[in-house]
């Protein structure tokens, strides 16, 4: 995305209307809503407590009417784990995104608005963080900080903000040259007012599209970290289910244990990817012509 691109700023209502007519955007939205529903009503949808250890005869059962997705090596119901896992994925996805896009917006806005030395220094720092390979740093940080869902959120957001800072900065650069900003400046508006009241609202659509795509990468990161055994043991997540399935040695037999968590992760990530791309197309008509 370059700075010269003109971004169309639709109201929320128009955006929604266009989204409904966009096939993949609508599909993404539906997938996300299904998982959100699952997460909110988890106690009502789940068959049992996801961490409740089953009786000996309930160990590694294939899918059946009693356990629609089977059970794991401790006799725990996999469907219930999937349902509760949605909470972890969505919590990490949304919170990490809010923090990381928040940092990115503040840095991108300051950098783009003030330019000069401020811009130079902030962008140097941004580039520096951007070059550090993300997953290895996340692994090291989570290994040192210890397994907790809050640490995972912190680790993901602290590493992923540079991309949003870059995108937002380039958008600010184009918005701040527009006549209405100049007009407000002539009327004596302060820098803070210009930044937050004049420029920010015009950057919001880009921030929104970016944020949606960020959710999917945050969900992916959480899944990988949990798969590598760095997940929060008190909150069952899809990545952790795959970790247990993989390290249990039961994969040769218990295929159902590995199948459903992966499908859940892939579906949710795809949902956010489809929605994000659709929003991008809508606010960025030049891309849509392609």
């Amino acid at each position, binding site marked *: 995305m370059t700075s010269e691109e003109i971004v169309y700023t639709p109201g929320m209502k128009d955006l929604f209307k266009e989204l409904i007519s966009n096939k993949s955007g609508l599909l993404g939205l539906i997938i996300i809503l299904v998982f959100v529903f699952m997460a909110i009503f988890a106690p009502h949808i789940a068959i049992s407590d996801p961490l409740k250890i089953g009786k000996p005869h309930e160990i590694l059962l294939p899918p059946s009417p009693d356990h629609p997705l089977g059970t794991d090596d401790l006799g725990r119901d996999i469907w219930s784990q999937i349902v509760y896992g949605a909470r972890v994925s969505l919590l990490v996805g949304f919170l990490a995104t809010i923090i990381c896009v928040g940092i990115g917006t503040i840095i991108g806005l300051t950098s783009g608005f003030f330019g000069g030395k401020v811009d130079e220094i902030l962008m140097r720092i941004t580039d*520096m963080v951007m070059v550090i390979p993300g*997953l290895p740093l996340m*692994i090291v940080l989570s290994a040192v*900080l210890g397994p907790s869902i809050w640490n995972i959120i912190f680790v993901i957001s602290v590493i992923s903000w540079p991309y949003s800072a870059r995108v937002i900065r380039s958008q600010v650069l184009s918005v701040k040259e527009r006549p209405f900003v100049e007009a407000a400046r002539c009327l004596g508006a302060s820098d803070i007012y210009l930044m937050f009241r004049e420029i920010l609202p015009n950057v919001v659509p880009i921030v929104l599209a970016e944020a949606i795509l960020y959710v999917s990468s945050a969900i992916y990161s959480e899944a990988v970290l949990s798969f590598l055994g760095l997940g929060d043991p008190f909150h069952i997540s899809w990545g952790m289910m795959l970790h247990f399935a993989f390290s249990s040695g039961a994969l040769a037999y218990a295929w159902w244990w590995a199948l459903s968590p992966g499908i859940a992760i*892939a579906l949710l990530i795809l949902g956010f990817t489809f929605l994000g791309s659709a929003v991008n197309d809508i606010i960025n008509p030049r891309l849509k012509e392609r």
Partner: protein
Amino acid sequence: MFKLAGLKKFILKKTISTLITLFAVITINFIIFRVMPGNPVHMMFTDPRVSKENIDVMMKRFGLDKPLWMQYFIYVRELFIGNLGISFWKNVPVIDVILGRLPQTIILLSFAILLSTVAGVFLGAYAAWKRGSKIDASILTVSLVTYSVPSFWVGILLLITFSYWLGLFPLGGITTPGIASAPLLDQIIDYLWHMALPLITLFFYYTGGYVLIMRNAMLDVLGEDYITTAYAKGLKEAVIMRKHAMRNALLPVATITALNIGWMIAGVVEVEVVFAWPGLGKLMYDAIMQRDYPLLQGVFLFIAISVILANFLADVIYGYLDPRVREEK
């Protein structure tokens, strides 16, 4: 003359920023492992039977009784002579463990990048050429899917299907036990047989990314004036695509590849763990499982420095090839 002067300044600028980045990563690494709650010796000896005197001796041996700034100084000095400490788990220098595992990652990564660049570049170019068509839409959707689906899960599915059920491929590792006494050709075939599934998994993951990058780069190029000129000259569309558009789209693809090394490393870490491929990614996982912090720290630092240097190289090459880049910040 002017061209070269600009290049020198560009390289100097990149060198300085690369050095600052390296310094920052080294410092971050020091802070993460030194300033966090507790210290390495306490982490090693959580056993209450270890006496206070023994801990003090260990603290002295590791230099942890010195002030923090001095520890930092020693750490940087040792780093320069390639000393990354001793692995708790293997009881040998960390750098030796890393160098022993490095070739396997390089081999797997090179094969995967080679195959998926070729496939991705052609599929992406084709999709851009047929933009808006059904073919374009399906290539785009498939790429988005393979790019989004976690590669460690794809690996697990392949493992279940082709290794456990069908028995066509090994369960992991790089060699069949006892193969060392077989003829060289058999050894090579055995190695490739072990590499097949990890390679396919990575191919899935990377190709999707390459298609998306190449398609975008092609679409940018197709909007340029010289393409219109080529059409006006009456050149055949296939010729324009191959000789004019693809060639120019390859440059951005090459840089984006270098900038995306971090993303590729992520894929390789996941795949190595699933297929027990003894490279750096698997080593990181082993270090976590063994709670071997010096090893974990060493692998991270090694990967980070390699990626930073690769980026520097890509920047310089790109700046040399395309003078326009030097003007930008």
